[in-house]
Each structure stands twice: as C-alpha cells, then as structure tokens.
C-alpha cells in the first residue's frame, strides 16, 4: 500500500478563508468565479465569490511584465533599511517563502489579523492555559460558554459541527450553550445570553473564578447576579466545560487581561472537573503564519530579523505601529486569501488577488492565485493542531504566492552590511 490520498476523484472543497476551515460546501462555477452553496460566513462567501479581475502585474499603477515587477520588488526590498512583511494571507508554503525573505532582508513579520493572537500568545507565555480542539468539543462538551460579543455569525457552522444534537461520542444530550457578553442583534435559539457589558467581562469572569473557588461573587455592574451565579453553578457541575472566545474582538486596555482571566478560571475548574478553552479566530491562515514563523525562527509572531537574529515582541513589532511611527521604510504585503488592504505610507509591494483592493495603491502589484481555489496548499485551523490540504478548484494561470516570493528572493541584491 502506498499513499491513501486520492488525487484522482475531486474532494469536497474546504473554505480556506478563516480558522474554522468549513467543509459541507458546494461550489458552482460561474462566469469567471464561483457561487457557494451551503452555510458560509460573509468572509468565506466574499473569498469564494471574488469577482474576476485583471491578472496584470503593475508598477506605479502601470502594466508591466511580471519579471519587471519582480525586479522592482527586489530593488525596493534590497534598498530598504527596515522592510515589514505584513498581511501574510497565504498557504504554508507561501509563508515559508515569506519568512525566508524576511530573514534575508532583515525584516519584520506580522499578520493582518494578529491583534487577538498577540493577546493569546502573551497568556500562553506568561501563565499557560488549558485548551481543546473542535472534534473534542463536538463529542465531549456538556457546556459551552462563549465570552464576548456574539461572534457566531462569523462561524455559522459552529453549532452544527461542534455542538450537534446527534452524532456525539458522549452518551448524554447536546451541550448547554451560554454567552456572556453584550446583547446581540439576532438571537440564536440554542444560546442563552447572560448580558454583560464589554468592559465588565473581566470582572464577570473573575467573579466566576471566585465562585469556582467557593468564594462569594462580588456584584458586577450591568450583570444580573442571579444569572451569573447560575452560570457559575453550571460550570462547576459540568463534566467538560468549554469556554470559547475571539480575542480579536476584545478591546484594549483589558483585552489581554480578559484572556488571562479566562485561563485562570479554566485552571480553577480543572482542579475538580474538566474544562478547556477554545480560542476562535484564524482569519487568512493567521495560525499557519504563527506556526511557520515559530518553527522556522524559533519564536512566534510578531517577529523581527532586523538585528540578524530572530527577536519576538508583541508590541514593538506590530506592522501597523512600525508604519504609523515611520520606523519602517518598505512594506511587503501578501493577501492571497482575504483581500486585506495594506496600511499606507511607504513603498509597498502587494501579492494579491487580481482586481482586489489590496493592490490598488501598491508601488508594485503582483497578482497571485488563492490556495484552495487556484492551487493546492495547506492552511491551519484555529485550534492550531489540524492543518488541512486544499485542492485547486479550477484551472488557473495565476502563480502561487511561494513561487512569486521565491522569484523576488532570487533577484535580491542587498545593500550594505547584509550583502
């Protein structure tokens, strides 16, 4: 027996645009694009149904041969004192190539959606946590508590995939589902809301932690004490409670503290029962970008190679901060998945989807295909464990991000000490 993967028969498509990596989708080919059938979030629909655009390389807005655009990109990077590699919306191999290029050019690496990830990473580094993954939640959770504003509209397959009413290994019924957070516009039948203003979430979760210790719960402004006490009892009684959050939704200054407070609560519950966290997020292969950076450099996002060695700092090496502060002098932006727009201010090289917003103001625009639509690739799910192999869904002449990045690297002439 050799390999098990069938490459002959087409597999059902996977959605590569966020960390939930939905399946159960149908793709209907249309003039130049796709129409999605099935339950899908707005970002996924936008990604699949992206209108066709001109796959023409541009320099300063004018059409050029791809080789000339690559040379210009290499020249910009070669002359830069501190290039920033941002966006990072690409498959694993594209990210490999970007991190290598950043290592060569002494650049900084950051992802367009990393704000929430940094909050989570700091908690992993400072205290650690107890977490779980989607299949575990589906089959084992008897209570799910979502913390923060309602993010389920962005994960519309969550209830079916992770809290089904049938199809669980656990013999008991489906889990009870609560959300602690500001009231939502639309209410999900199965989700009971414990209303809590956004700036009261730290206090409310800390109160749940006190209750889990058997201590009195102090009042939390804007939260019904009886509802919070009932939630505390349910958490204590659950055999496998799962607390989910989307750290990208949290607001500073309390965002990181809220993640840490959730981690404290999970540790406390685990002294007597089982409980685990489920961090939501992972837009445009954010988790893949973090994984590739971590294994190649030994340190996670956000990361700098500017001193010749990898240095990690979640605040200093924010792409947005470096650009706003005028510390960076070139931007290399990859948007092969979601059409994210680069921050303005410096000469910018964009690898993006033809016709997208990402390349509108770029100094150099290089069109690339999208993994899972135009070429095969790998992306990570939000739990950081499962990576999935994506198939091409159409014949495409567009290059993959990795090939373009490597072509730029091969044309690079470095100035000064790094030469």
């Amino acid at each position, binding site marked *: *027996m*050799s*390999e*098990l*993967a069938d490459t002959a028969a087409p*597999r*059902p498509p*996977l959605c590569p645009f966020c960390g939930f990596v939905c*399946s159960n989708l149908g793709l209907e080919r249309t003039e130049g694009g796709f129409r999605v059938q099935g339950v899908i979030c707005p970002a996924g629909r936008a990604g699949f149904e992206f209108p066709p655009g001109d796959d023409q390389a541009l320099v300063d807005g004018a059409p050029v041969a791809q080789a000339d655009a690559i040379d210009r990109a290499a020249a910009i990077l070669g002359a830069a004192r501190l290039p920033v590699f941002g966006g990072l919306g690409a498959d*694993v*191999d594209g990210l490999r190539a970007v991190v*290598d290029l950043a*290592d*060569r050019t002494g650049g900084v690496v950051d992802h367009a959606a990393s704000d929430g990830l940094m909050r989570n*990473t700091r908690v*992993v*580094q*400072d*205290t*650690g*946590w*107890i*977490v*779980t*993954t*989607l*299949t*575990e939640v589906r*089959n*084992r959770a008897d209570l799910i508590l979502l913390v923060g504003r309602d993010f389920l509209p962005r994960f519309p397959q969550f209830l079916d995939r*992770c809290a089904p009413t049938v*199809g669980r*290994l656990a013999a008991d019924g489906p889990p009870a589902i609560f959300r602690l957070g500001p009231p939502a516009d639309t209410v999900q039948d199965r989700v009971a809301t414990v209303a809590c203003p956004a700036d009261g979430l730290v206090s409310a979760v800390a109160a749940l932690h006190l209750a889990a210790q058997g201590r009195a719960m102090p009042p939390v402004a804007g939260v019904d004490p009886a509802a919070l006490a009932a939630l505390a009892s349910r958490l204590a009684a659950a055999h*496998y409670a799962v607390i989910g959050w989307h750290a990208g939704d949290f607001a500073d200054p309390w965002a990181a503290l809220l993640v840490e407070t959730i981690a404290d609560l999970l540790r406390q519950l*685990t002294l007597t*029962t*089982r409980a*685990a966290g489920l961090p939501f997020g992972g837009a445009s292969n954010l988790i893949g970008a973090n*994984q*590739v950076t*971590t*294994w*190649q*450099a*030994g*340190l*996670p996002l956000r990361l700098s*190679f500017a001193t*010749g*060695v*990898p*240095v*990690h700092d979640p605040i200093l090496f924010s792409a947005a901060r470096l650009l706003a502060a005028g510390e960076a002098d070139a931007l290399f932006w990859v948007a092969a998945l979601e059409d994210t727009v680069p921050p303005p201010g410096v000469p910018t090289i964009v690898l993006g989807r033809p016709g997208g917003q990402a390349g509108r103001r770029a100094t150099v625009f290089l069109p690339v295909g999208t993994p899972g639509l135009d070429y095969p690739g790998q992306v*990570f799910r939000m739990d*950081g*464990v*499962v*990576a*999935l*192999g994506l198939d091409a869904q159409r014949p495409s002449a567009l290059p993959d991000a990795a090939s373009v990045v490597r072509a730029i690297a091969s044309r690079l002439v470095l100035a000064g000490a790094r030469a």
Partner: protein
Amino acid sequence: MTVTRLSGGRVFDPANGVEGDIRDLFLRDGLIIADPGPGARFGAHFDLSGCAVMAGGIDMHSHIAGGKVNIARMMMVDDHRRYRDPRDRHRRSGSGHCSPSTFATGYRYAELGYTAVFEPAMLGANARHAHAELADIPMLDRGCYVLLGNDEHFLEILSDGADPRRLADYVGWTIAATQAVGVKIVNPGGIFSFKHNRRSLGFDDEIPVYGLTPRRILTALAEAVRATGIVHPLHVHCNDLGVPGNRDTTIATIRAAADAGVPLHLTHLQFHSYGTDGDRHFSSAAASIAELVNASPNITVDIGQIVFGQTITASGDTMSQYRGRIHAHPKTWLCMDIECDAGCGLVPFRYRDTSFVNALQWAIGLELFLLIEDPWRIFLTTDHPNGGPFTAYPHLIRLLMDRSFRRDMLKTINPDAAAATVLGGIGREYSLQEIAILTRAGPARVLGLKDRGHLGAGARADIAAYRDDAADRQAMFERPAHVFKDGRAVVRDGRLIETVWGSTLVASPAFDRAAIERHLAPWFERYATVPLRHYPVADDEITRAPHGRLERV
C-alpha cells in the same frame, strides 16, 4: 560519477562486524561502494587517519517537530532570547537551546555527526503539521511514530469485540494516512481517561466508558502493529510516568508483552524505573528493571537520560503533565485535549544537581545504561527535550565511556542521591564499538533501516569521523572532523560547511483499505470535524515542499 576515497580511519561498523580496523571507504552517487581496486581514480580524497569512523548517528526518539514542539518554542521565550543564531552563508537564522527552531535542529544534529532523527509522538490529527515542519529540517533523514491507543476509534473497535483483523487494518491505515514509520502508545488509556477527569490510571484499572484496561489496550495494539508487518515494534511510553513506585507498572508491562508474545520498545525507561524505598519514598529500581530487560529478548529500550539545567517537557501524556504542573519552572504550563485522538502537555522544567530527586533521576538513567547488558537493545536518548537537549549527547557518551569522569561527576550531585545509587560501584565502560551500536547500528536495526546505520557496500554514505581522543570523549564527539550526508561533505571540524536535505522515511504497512474505510466512513461522518478524504497526508504534500523527498522503508 567520480569516487570519493576516505582513507586511514579506524572503522567502527558493528553491523558488519568491523571493530576499529584501519580501512578505506569509497563513496559514489551518495552510497558506499566496494573497493574499486587498483587503478581507480578518485574525485576527492579525505584523510581520516587518527579518526574513529562510524555511520551517521541515528536518534530514534527526539521531539523535534509538530504541534507540541512548536508550542514549546512559543513558550520558551527566555531560552530563545538567550540562544540565537544569526543567518550566514550556509544557514538560516534560528533560536532556542531546548526547543530549537527547525533549521537550527538540523544544523546542530549534523554538527554532532547525526544524519537521521525520529520524531516519536506525531498525533494523527497533527500529522500534516508535523510533516510540514520536518520539511524545514535540513541535514537529516527523518520520520515519525504516530500515536494510537488513546484515540476513540481504536478504543471503540477494541471494546466492540476486538476483531484483530479490523484493529490491524485500522493501525495500518493510520500509519499510511499519517505517513508514519512506527506506532507509539503513550500512557495506555491515560490520555483518554484524563478527558474524563481521571487523574491516575494503573495498568489493570478500567478506563471510563469503554471498560478496557491499559494491559488490554497495550497488548492488542502491539499485536495489531505486528500484524501490519512494519519493522518497528510498538513504541511504549508506559503508564505512571514519573510516579515513585512505577517500577511495578514497568515490570507488569514487560511481563504482559512476554505473555502476549509480542515485542515492545520501552521508551525513556529512566522515567519509569522508580521505587519507593528510603526516607523520601523515592529510590532507584534500575537494577530490577535492568535484570528483567536482560532476560527479555523481545524488549528494546531507550533511556531518556536527564541532563542538569533548564529544559521544557513536551509530552502527549496530559495526565502526567497535569500532575507535573506544580514543578513548572518558569511557572507557566499548558495542557491540550486533541480531537478525540490524544493530547499534549508542556511543562518547562529545570533539573538541579542539588535536588535529591533530580540527582537520583540522573543516576538511575546511568545505572540503566550500565546494567543493561546487550548494547543492541538499548539506545542513547535524552528524550529530547524532556530529559534535556540532544546537544548533551557527547557529554553522556563520556559518562558512559569514562568511569573516572563518571565518579567525579557523582561527587558533585546531591550527596543523599549519591549515597542512594550504586553508580559509583559500577566499573563498566562502553567501548567505541558499543557507542556505535547504541547510536547507529542498533537504532537502524530496530527501525528496519537496511541502508543506514552501517558502512557496508550499498549503504547510504552517511558517515561521521571523530578525531580519537581517549582522554576526553566529550570533546571528541562534540566536534566531528568530518561528516558526510549522502556522500557530501557537510561538516568539517564541527562546523557546517554545506546545507543538504534528507528524506522523510515512512513505513509500508499491509492492510485492507476498503474494509477499514467501510467502517471509518460513517465514523468520520458522525464524529469527526475533518472529512475522511481530507485526513490522509498525500505523498505530494511531502514531496511538493522545497527539497521534499519521500522514501518507503
């Protein structure tokens, strides 16, 4: 193609019965060839006189890639701030001492003369990630053992009447789907039980839901692995890791294998050889364990020797890692339940020579090395990074080869631990030939690598030449004079001179695919969050990576 001649070295090639003879080696097209005879012309010539020449080192148990290793890197920011490697002409930049980045891992192993390393705890759910990381480890051939035995599909088949054919088909399918070269079980039933809030699990305790015992799970899986026809026997991380008195569990495990007539590999045996004697109720059980291993030809072991200093423990054994969280240094730890498949736990740890327990762990590992008689059935490991980083191997080799050095070290550890070990009374010193068995020939044999771990004609030209230094074996093994990978000179005087790329080694199990997929399809449909057809890692996902190469053993 031209022939390369390596002349004048003392060759230690135990697989071919060569011990220290001075002879020339000839390389062509990445392989070792027979002496081409007089008149042959050589494209290159390396003078290895004064060197001990061995096959490239093979580390059969080292956590170098995959989910938990990458979490370790994220957590160990201080360690990665202290140990940073700049990019240079041959290397990518990197960082980390106990959980180094992928490129740094490859370079450092090569600079110690190693040419193949095996990641021993790949979760099926994480296989695609593990292989993506391995693809970024240069210099080495590499492979993975896939975890089974805490996954609910296996437990369900076993509790449903345990058709051995179906178990074997499932194991074979999993090996193929995850591109593994072996199968490992971690704390049989224990990772699963921790998800049901069990905090310990003895060898004959029943797990929740399925009512199976670790004994039953272990023996059934060992038989299923054998039935697939792969060479490496079931690789076992026993129950009760780190628990004083766990020698009883280890002995019961070895006896269960004998009763079932199956071979086992017991990994990081040091962590499973503890008694309860003495005031502190923690003692060495190495002598009794070694005696049983010596009498059990179906058992191979690696040690998981500890090294004093900072490291991070990374394990699939969530039950044991959760227990160990109170010893975390620095004070951060992480546990994860994974995909009804397994789990992982990360606990940073600092082994102190002033600690009675740590010092005795150090002594227990060395006692096992010295009391287990057959070098073909014992392999040199620190269970990197759990006992300490692999870069300590030259130091450990000196401890094994030099009893006066060993006794000097013994004087520096916690005196109560020194008094509690028989180590000072053991005179055995390993020979260079035995080191070549421990670190090359033995691992190749237990993994079924026919063309690695030896220097006969037809073998891969993976070769390490160490300048002989009887006075300081550590210095000798820290800095090989030459290392060749697939016939190319890649290291000189302990420094990398060229980056090359090895193969991913995978097994070729026998199983009935159609039969098992009939059962897997509805199971995936009902319980999994990944479609069945997206689970297997395709060959071209490995070969499409830059420098990707796949080799079936």
